[in-house]
């Protein structure tokens, strides 16, 4: 496939179209959607981690003035609705048997399996009445033993969560040639082992989840406004699989969505419940999650414990890598949750480094915790952490320089294209150049002075790097539809879902650039099952890669049609017509026609050749990605650690990313910096913590720390743009997740560098001040 580089639109830091709406308070988020006479719903959630529901008495609640409907698990069972399915791409055990998929009903039936699981739906005239009613519902629980940590869940004698999943195992997994890996280990001079934790975190978009459901009894059609990142696929699941109402009867729309990061990707119980309620009541029903409920019920991310081993020679040459992970799934499979610790974490094992052999194996157990599903990166942050931590740890153990170790083992550009031991098609890039550039921009000359200044204050300074390699994902197909409206506006509908990334701008920027149209004439639609036939939504850094390619493809088709219209007018063959800067022209003649002329001509048959119909420039096309792209880059980080308190200040941050073509650098850097903040949060402060009885201890913003402005360093973001990929029409590789893939290992490496004189070479995330202090104290104690 030839790389097509647009003449315009690419490389412009177009300011965002959506910003005026957001900045003036006119965004329309889910809580701003109101339907006349709507009722309000709230969900009664389980206070128990694992318990049998002996009985539920709703009589008092139902009698409360203003209560309209209460739905319990027994009611749900009688509806005949199906469970929410799981769509993980990995579905079989290593031995070929099927993964264990327990039934995930929208309401708990007979037994609860995590704190926060929906037990009943209450619908009332107001939210306050809902709360009053929930207090009056009496649920008789009989507690069962519970288990929240994945390592405990797979031990013999652990409480069993599902009869169908002996030992609590949903799925196991392997990738790579274990024999080759073992031989590499046997041949190598050293094998270094490190157990590490990818802590459990939650996406925490600033807008909590919510939805509004409406039902038209006349037509039998439903409408669901939903703060979701994945409108089309979730429509299909909700309508066709769960409620069995037929997807043509569910109009699914996302209004402005206040952040997602994967946490709004899956199919959740609550929207399904209120669709049911809307039908029962023949009234619109609105449900908005509290923030505290979000902590209990938004799918969580990461939560893997891994044993990572690297084999290397005395001269630092990497030989083999082996990772054994146990990834928590929570009480259910999630929408694609079981893919993260298995396939998702396996593909990028080894990063951009040469190995003779890599082997990855994982177990994915159920626990009595909220289900896990993709959170920004979903497997790639884990993989990057594995390789980039084990390199620094091995360097410390063997007295080697972690920067030299990386330098020595990076895959050289002349080895590309190649298939990695994990099966990734790495087509292009220049890892050594990206790495050296990362070091170059990170002000190494000034480092000694900064160390000195830190020491003078009693502080320890450290420097850490990471060379990440990741891959895109998400739905492989995307639709872009262009309709030229009578009022001169151009409607662009794309099946991607922007939850803050700026698609409304960048897709329009591409269309305007390709066709030579004015940005202000473009009207953007997304996240609406009426706007496009298909839509892959948001996930896997696919927005430009697949969505932007679809816009490009549709633009090219429009130009081809336009050429025919121009050829018809000028009475020449279409292949004589060229298109440039919004004009069709025939070289060597005075024949020119603007795109606007062509558009204005398209509805009159007299203006069209025989093979074109009126409206022929209104085109929709579907782009399908063949092979996923490989974003890669270097992160470098400087930290200052207060050894007395363990406090860490991230004091400098430098990134060089290879995202292929950069369409809008301003937006790309926004993605990178936001990703770094989330990576810094995971590395230093964020932690979803369940106690032994299965209660969520970090259940509000009082206990779950998010990075604030004064926690963040100044970041310098640069790009390597000399290796656009040919896997899509734009040459882009995907930018959305890279920041949080590179940041955790870079930050932890920097901290361990700062603490090396104490003999501290690893601390598990999050690196809270107390953990750092304890590590220093313990290291001093053991001398």
């Amino acid at each position, binding site marked *: 496939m030839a790389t097509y580089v647009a003449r315009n639109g690419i490389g412009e830091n177009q300011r965002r179209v959506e910003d005026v709406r957001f900045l003036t308070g006119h965004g329309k988020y889910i809580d701003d959607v109101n339907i006349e006479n709507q009722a309000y719903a709230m969900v009664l959630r389980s206070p128990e981690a694992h318990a049998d529901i002996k009985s539920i008495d709703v009589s008092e609640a139902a009698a409360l003035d203003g209560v309209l409907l209460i739905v319990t698990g027994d009611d749900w069972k009688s509806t005949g609705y199906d469970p929410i399915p799981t769509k993980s791409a990995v579905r079989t055990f290593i031995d070929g048997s099927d993964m264990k998929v327990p039934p995930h009903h929208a309401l708990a039936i007979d037994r609860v399996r995590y704190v926060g699981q929906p037990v009943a739906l209450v619908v009332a005239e107001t939210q306050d009445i809902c*709360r009053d009613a929930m207090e009056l519902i009496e649920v008789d629980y009989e507690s069962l033993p519970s288990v929240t940590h994945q390592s405990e869940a797979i031990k013999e004698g652990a409480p069993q969560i599902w009869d169908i999943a002996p030992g609590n195992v949903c799925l196991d997994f392997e990738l790579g040639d274990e024999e080759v890996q073992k031989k590499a280990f046997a041949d190598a001079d050293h094998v270094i082992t490190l157990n590490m934790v990818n802590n459990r975190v939650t996406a925490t978009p600033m807008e909590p989840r919510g939805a509004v459901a409406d039902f038209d009894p006349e037509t039998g059609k439903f409408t669901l406004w939903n703060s979701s990142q994945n409108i089309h696929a979730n429509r299909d699941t909700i309508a066709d699989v769960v409620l069995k109402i037929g997807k043509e009867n569910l109009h699914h729309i996302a209004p402005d969505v206040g952040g997602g990061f994967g946490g709004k990707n899956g199919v959740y119980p609550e929207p399904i419940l209120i669709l049911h309620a809307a039908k029962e009541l023949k009234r619109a029903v609105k449900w908005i999650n509290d923030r*505290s409920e979000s902590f209990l019920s938004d799918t969580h991310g990461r939560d893997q414990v891994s044993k990572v081993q690297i084999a290397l020679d005395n001269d630092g040459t990497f030989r083999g890598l082996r990772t054994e992970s146990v990834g928590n799934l929570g009480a259910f499979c999630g929408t694609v949750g079981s893919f993260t610790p298995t396939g998702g974490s396996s593909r990028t094992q080894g990063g951009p480094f040469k190995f003779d052999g890599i082997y990855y194996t994982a177990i994915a157990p159920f626990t009595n915790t909220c289900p896990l599903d993709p959170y920004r990166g979903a497997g790639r942050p884990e993989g990057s952490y594995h390789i980039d931590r084990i390199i620094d740890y091995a360097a410390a153990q063997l007295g080697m320089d972690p920067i030299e170790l990386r330098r020595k083992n990076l895959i050289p550009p002349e080895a590309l294209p190649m298939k990695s031991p994990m099966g990734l098609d790495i087509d292009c890039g220049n890892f050594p150049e990206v790495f050296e550039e990362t070091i170059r921009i990170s002000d190494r000359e000034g480092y000694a002075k900064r160390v000195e200044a830190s020491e003078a204050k009693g502080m320890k300074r450290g420097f850490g790097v990471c060379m990440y390699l990741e891959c895109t994902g998400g739905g492989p197909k995307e639709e872009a539809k262009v309709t030229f409206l009578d009022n001169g506006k151009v409607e662009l509908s794309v099946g991607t879902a922007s939850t803050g990334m700026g698609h409304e701008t960048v897709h329009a920027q591409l269309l305007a650039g390709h066709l030579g149209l004015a940005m202000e004439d473009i009207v953007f639609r997304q996240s609406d099952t009426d706007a496009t036939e298909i839509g892959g939504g948001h996930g896997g850094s696919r927005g430009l890669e697949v969505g932007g390619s679809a816009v490009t493809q549709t633009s090219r088709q429009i130009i081809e049609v336009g050429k025919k219209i121009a050829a018809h007018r000028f009475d020449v063959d279409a292949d004589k017509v060229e298109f440039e800067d919004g004009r069709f022209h025939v070289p060597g003649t005075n024949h020119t026609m603007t795109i606007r002329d062509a558009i204005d001509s398209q509805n009159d048959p007299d203006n069209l050749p025989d093979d074109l119909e009126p409206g022929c420039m209104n085109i929709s096309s579907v782009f399908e990605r063949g092979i996923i792209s490989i974003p890669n880059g270097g992160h470098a980080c400087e930290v200052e650690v207060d050894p007395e*308190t363990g406090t860490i200040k991230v004091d400098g941050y430098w990134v060089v990313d290879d995202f292929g073509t950069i369409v809008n650098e301003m937006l790309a850097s926004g993605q990178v910096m936001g990703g770094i903040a989330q990576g810094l949060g995971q590395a230093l402060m964020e932690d979803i*913590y369940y106690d032994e009885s299965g209660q969520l201890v970090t259940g509000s913003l*009082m*206990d779950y*720390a998010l990075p604030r402005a004064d926690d963040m360093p100044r970041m310098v973001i640069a790009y390597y743009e000399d290796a656009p990929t040919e896997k899509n029409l734009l040459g882009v590789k995907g930018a959305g997740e890279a920041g949080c893939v590179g940041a955790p290992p870079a930050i932890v490496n920097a901290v361990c560098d700062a603490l090396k004189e104490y003999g501290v070479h690893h601390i598990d995330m999050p690196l809270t*001040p*107390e953990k750092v*202090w304890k590590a220093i104290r313990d290291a001093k104690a053991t001398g």
Partner: protein
Amino acid sequence: MYDFGIKNPTSIDDVKAALGDAEDGQFLAGGQTLIPVLKQRLAMPSDLISLSRVDGLSGITAGGDSISIKAMTRHAEVAANADIKSAIPALAKLAGGIGDPHVRNRGTIGGSVANNDPAADYPAAVLGLGATVITNEREIDADNFFTGMFDTALNEGELITEISFPIPEAVGYIKFPNPATRYALVGVMVAKFGNTVRVAVTGAGPCVFRVPEMEQALTASFSPDSIKDGLVPADDLNNDIHASREYRAHLIGVLARRAVAEANG
């Protein structure tokens, strides 16, 4: 939130009457703690008696050897007050480090002190500076005021009207903030008055407390080096997901030394 009645008294006498009329009335000062608590249905007062419109409950008066702060004075006003900044700089700093700017624009010194949250900053100042809590009934020494977790010497219906802080010779306050809430995980105030030194610790225990061992050591020599490790045993300190009791015990020593250094300029 459960429903409740509202009372908006304009004088201290009216406050008493309003409270008497209520079945289970509760004062509402700045509301920065109480309103979130009500939202979570963790309290169920019959009535809220708002103090916002009570005459004469707000303002800062500097005297020769003390500064008096009326109960409804907002944290932001204390933080910005020129007299406090020059006479008791650590008090201004403490007020300027409570929560965040929005909390400081609403929260009041009286509300904070009456609530006696174990992680609040103000109790460290009141106890550390040996302030006098003045109510509509009497004056209470700081040493007799804080009686336990969320508990004070205030009688039912007794209202703090102002707090009088003696001006120290030297003072320092260092806080280790909880990363999520910015409350004090541990906060230490050290104040020197002639031959007397007071050290008060908040955040670390169920209630703000003094550390006599440190006070004695600092009375002998007011220097960071006087504070040895291990002066506060970990046994009775708070132990939660944010910090273990041993970490808190360690921090008390570190922060106390830094507070002394700050006091010494």
